């Protein structure tokens, strides 16, 4: 074990955790031991884990604040669902169709990440946070106003209402404004979700350990120093941000193929969702991939597991959030934890027994 460098070992533990959880869940499901609620939560958990990892790339590794991650997820969700909806009869082999949908969702979200990053990432300061915040809201509102129909003559677009599409009788409305896309094929499942989590991990962890990743982290740590040694700052910032956006798009495709209908509602893709993903990252540890994955899982499961508490559910959830935040970040508690650490205690006991 000692022969493997520590960095690799760390990565392998993360992969191992994901695979172990997958294996355990599959065994439990095959014995019928998993509740229906939990089975239904498996895909959403994968979605939030992917979102947490991808945002950690922007916030933790690149060191820029993004408040519009849900906007990229929204783009991916709609691009993927749109593709699946129009090809559901043409491509009957669903894994292939879903694969293509994922690629399209990732490309669309990544492209918009690139477009937004291009002007904004040239600046220093909090401009990315401001622009992504606006972007997330704009995307949501544009999709809510967008009508796309398909009939024999091809596609029809409108930004006013359904009637102005001028469809033939046999035409079909694909994106119906605020009513979104209905009838997306349900292609998401736990296995695909886990494969995508592993893929996301593979991309992000390898990026971090690569030459490019070290350049990205050097920008985070000291912009002037990295510029002085000839690192192309904008290029690396753009690279990290676009990859992060593309991965959010993948999560979006998974989302829209897990539900029958996808609507650009504030609850699903609004500002609060972006903040929720940011909370996963901050609670799990900025720059700590595994931590943010665990935070995403715990914070998604918690409100569902507390359904029995009825109306106190949200109150307790909020208290747990505050307690976790204090536990992880409050200086006094950090100092207290330092003094009362179990490792230390064991060490002291051992030391005494040696004497």
């Amino acid at each position, binding site marked *: 074990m000692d022969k493997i460098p520590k960095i690799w070992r760390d990565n392998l533990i993360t992969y191992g955790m994901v695979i172990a959880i997958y294996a355990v869940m599959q065994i439990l499901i095959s014995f019928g031991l998993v509740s229906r*609620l939990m089975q*239904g939560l498996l895909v*959403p958990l994968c979605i939030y884990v992917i979102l947490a990892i991808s945002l950690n790339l922007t916030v933790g590794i690149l060191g820029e604040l993004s408040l519009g991650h849900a906007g990229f997820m929204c783009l991916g969700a709609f691009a993927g669902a749109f593709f699946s909806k129009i090809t559901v009869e043409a491509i009957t082999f669903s894994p292939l169709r879903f694969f293509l949908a994922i690629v399209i969702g990732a490309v669309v979200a990544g492209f918009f990440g690139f477009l937004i990053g291009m002007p904004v990432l040239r600046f220093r300061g909090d401009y990315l946070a401001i622009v992504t915040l606006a972007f997330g809201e704009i995307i949501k509102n544009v999709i809510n106003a967008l009508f796309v129909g398909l009939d024999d003559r091809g596609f029809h677009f409108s930004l006013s209402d359904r009637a102005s599409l001028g469809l033939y009788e046999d035409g079909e409305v694909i994106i119906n404004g605020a009513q979104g896309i209905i009838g997306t094929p349900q292609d998401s499942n736990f296995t695909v979700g886990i494969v995508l989590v592993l893929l996301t991990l593979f991309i992000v962890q390898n990026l971090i350990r690569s030459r490019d990743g070290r350049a990205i982290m050097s920008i985070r740590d000291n912009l002037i120093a990295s510029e002085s040694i000839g690192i192309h700052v904008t290029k690396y910032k753009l690279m990290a941000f676009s990859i992060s956006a593309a991965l959010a798009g993948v999560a979006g495709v998974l989302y829209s193929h897990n*539900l029958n*209908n996808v609507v650009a509602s504030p609850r699903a893709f609004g500002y609060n969702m972006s903040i929720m993903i940011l909370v996963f990252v901050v609670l799990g540890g900025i720059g700590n991939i595994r931590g943010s994955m665990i935070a995403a899982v*715990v914070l998604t499961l918690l409100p569902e597991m507390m359904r029995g508490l009825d109306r106190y559910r949200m109150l307790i959830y909020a208290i747990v959030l505050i307690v976790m935040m204090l536990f992880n970040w409050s200086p006094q508690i950090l100092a207290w934890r330092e003094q009362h650490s179990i*490792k230390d205690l064991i060490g002291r006991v051992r030391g005494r027994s040696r004497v």
Partner: protein
Amino acid sequence: MKMFKKVLSLCLVAVLSLSVLTACGNNDSDVFKIGGIGPLSGGAAIYGIAVRNGAQIAVDEINAAGGINGVQIEFNMQDDEHDAEKAVNAYNSLKDWGMQILMGTVTSTPCVAVGVHSSADNLFQITPSASSANVVKDNDNIFQICFNDPNQGYGSAQYIGQIGVMGNDGSLVTNVAIIYDSSDVYSSGLYDTFIKEAANQPFNIVATEAFTESSNTDFSVQLQKAKDAGAQLIFLPLYYKEASLILAQAAAIDYNPVFFGGDGLDGILTVENFNTGLAEGVILLTPFIASSADAKTQAFVSEYERLHGEIPNQFAAGAYDAIYVIKAAIEHSGATHTMSVSELGDALKVAVTQISINGLTGENMTWLPTGEVNKAPKAMVIVNGIYVEL
């Protein structure tokens, strides 16, 4: 420090993994288990809470009178925060509890998402208020208590065109403006069919003004445009919160058209700090009137007021009816609580098309096999602070 963290996370993992494991799902209890799903927290919570309260009153009444064929009902309402994903979670958690019949969901988007799962389970589902046409489309196990959105938009256009509305200037309304929320499923659903049917009707649409959820507080621009276009009537396919603002802002610019809305306007008289005098003359198509002289309605309203201290809205009334529809369908089909979910679903979805119910939200309600309700729409006008049938 690291160690401490590890122990803590191990404890967390242990607790979570315990909760993963299932309790046995078979219904060996001797009750009918009816589930409910709706927003009990968040922005749409008033609707979900009204449904929970209304349904609970019906359940208590039935249980006190001996239950359905002598079998008691257990009712469990879960929160979906008006979100599709959470609604599916709520559905799954109710299935774990042993739900046999679903009364819900309250809002449309979650209802469409839940519909896929309930129809896969062949579970009988009846929604008091999810009015989108997509709710019942392609699902033969889902039924609605409320009119669907297309019917409301169509009915409103027909009413203005055929029966006619007297404008406040003393002449029959011919110029109509629309203000609607383009980011809302209910509002845009009504708008779509209203516009479509308006083309066949003898009135003109002189202005259509949209707003979105993020700009739903200031309507002065939309109202000014409607005023300039000479609209005698403004169609408001909205919920009452926005409508109350529109009424107040129209009064502020001295604009006095007739306001006409769907069932979403029900509740406008209960908005806090709203001058109810402004709502005089507002016309709405609503299935339920709390001030009705009908004995059943009076009993329900006074019971609701006693328990919750407020006048029930149509969501509560719809939920009350939904529970009684379930009761009537079970009695008609002779189904028992020991049947499996799918057997119960098969029996009830046939039975519900064969019964006729006199409820709070309509006389002689019958259901089509598609899931749509068949009842006469009622147009109400607000006079002296109460609804009066037109």
